[in-house]
């Protein structure tokens, strides 16, 4: 469904992504992990059009979408959330989510958009906050609103950037279940960047590990969590005593 081929992204002298290739199948849940600064968010920004890579291409359902402007990528059916939520602060929660339905893939009319928005707000359990200004939401609610907003664009592929970071364990498991259901029941494909290992490992079909801008390992959660290279990357070199 999504095919990233040999993507290179540099910032000045820093190589943020070094020939990264990755592919995702229809209705797959891919966990994208790696230590801080390993290039996870950069990769998201390349896929969703916020950055243009210096080398490599991104294909989505056979179309070359490399460097396409972000709003056009949304119209292809790819949506994302941001690591630090970006609410439209002075719009209400409902308007935030409606904007996505009106401008997203289907360009819904106002009344349709309202229905779509209310459905997704109910799904993320934020319906009773619909008429509140988005800037009044707490961090958890902001993240849920962003999820609802991304879903309202009508995507087939959803990119989640640290959705559950900052949530307490019970909230976290709840959101994880919610997200997993999107794949199992609604047929979405999801790539999730996550720091919380418990969340990624329990939810992903497959895990992709980035380290210093390059692929370190890839496989089922069990394989990856046993991989010595991965353990080393996360815990550092073993110390000789």
């Amino acid at each position, binding site marked *: 469904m999504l095919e990233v081929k040999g993507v290179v992204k540099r910032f000045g002298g820093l190589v943020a992504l070094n020939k990264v290739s990755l592919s995702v199948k229809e209705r797959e849940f891919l966990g994208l992990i790696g230590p801080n600064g390993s290039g996870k968010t950069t990769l998201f920004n390349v896929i*969703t*059009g*916020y950055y243009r890579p210096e080398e490599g291409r991104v294909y989505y359902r056979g179309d070359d979408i490399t460097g396409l*402007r*972000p*709003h056009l990528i*949304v*119209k292809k059916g790819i*949506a*994302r959330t*941001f690591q630090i939520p*970006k*609410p*439209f*602060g*002075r*719009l209400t929660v409902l*308007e*935030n989510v*409606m*904007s*996505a339905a*009106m*401008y*997203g*893939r289907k360009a819904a009319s*106002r009344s349709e*958009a309202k229905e779509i928005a209310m459905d997704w707000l109910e799904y993320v359990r934020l319906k009773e906050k619909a*008429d509140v200004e988005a800037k009044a939401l707490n961090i958890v609610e902001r993240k849920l609103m962003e999820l609802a*907003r*991304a879903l*309202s*664009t009508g995507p087939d592929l959803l990119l989640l950037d640290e959705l559950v970071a900052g949530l307490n364990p019970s909230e976290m498991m709840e959101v994880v279940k919610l997200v997993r259901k999107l794949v199992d029941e609604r047929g979405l494909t999801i790539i999730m960047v996550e720091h919380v290992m418990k969340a990624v490992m329990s939810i992903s079909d497959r895990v992709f590990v980035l380290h210093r801008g390059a692929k370190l390992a890839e496989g089922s959660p069990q394989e990856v969590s046993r991989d010595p290279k991965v353990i080393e990357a996360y815990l550092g070199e073993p110390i000789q005593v």
Partner: protein
Amino acid sequence: MGLELKFTKKLIIAALLLIIGAIFPLFADEFLVSILMQAYLWAFLAMSWDVIGGYGGQFSLGHAAFLALGAYTSTILLQGYNVSPWVGMWAAGVVAGAAGALVGIASLRLKGPFFALGTIAFAELVKLLLLYFKGITGGPLGILITKSGPENMLFETQTPYYYLMFVLMLAGILFLKWFESSRFGIGLVAVREDEEAAEGVGINVYRTKVIGAAISAFLTGIGGTIYAQWIHFIRPDILVKLEYSTQIAAIDVVGGAGSPYGGLIGALILVPLSLYLNALFGGMIAGLSLILYGVVLLIVVVMIPGGIYGLLRRRLRRKLPDQR
């Protein structure tokens, strides 16, 4: 139930204000009528500015240029081609709107204070062009409106103008009320709040900014026609003034930018104040109103962001916390 009550209350207040506004000329003298009328006109201009300045978050200090382009377009059509301003005002809107689109394109590159500076420069450019093309615009001498009759939007007394601008102001409020919950309005505010997130929900940020500026300028151009019809005489240096651009922005910010009522509230306070000060000091102190607007703007931006309307709304909400 609380909401219903609030709605009826709102309706009653609106109806009362409407009636007071409508019968005002029957009781007040021509002088007061003239002041209120000017407040309505400036309220409309501030509301026009609000589209890009308030909802769009692009602080323009060049709106006098759109006012002048509108005024010149309909006046040239009237004096040169006998086109009634009732028709010409739409052409005025289109010409000003096209210029607005150009400014919108500039806003893609210029952020914040640089955009404001850019719009000042743009207004100066428009003034120079109006002076330069003497053959069409009359250059520094300007154009005198010599026609007459209601069919040419020209009246003998102030009262018809009062109603004209009353309706214009009401139309402005109704437009903004519709605009702020329209698809485009929500998109424009989204772009103001966060451009990256706006792109992330599929909004074409470039197009939204350019169209937003064009709509704002279109409305200002229509206001320009009405203004010209009222003063009967246009000249580049009396229309394209930084003072006017500042006044338009200041009225809206003081009243409450990004709301349908901000323009009216700001105009009802600032327009009488500036007319009074100008009458008091005459032309003796140059740039007095500029200083006034500067000071008032500073105070409002620092002390009450959201303007007077924002302040009132917060107060009301605090008083009636259970009415949500």
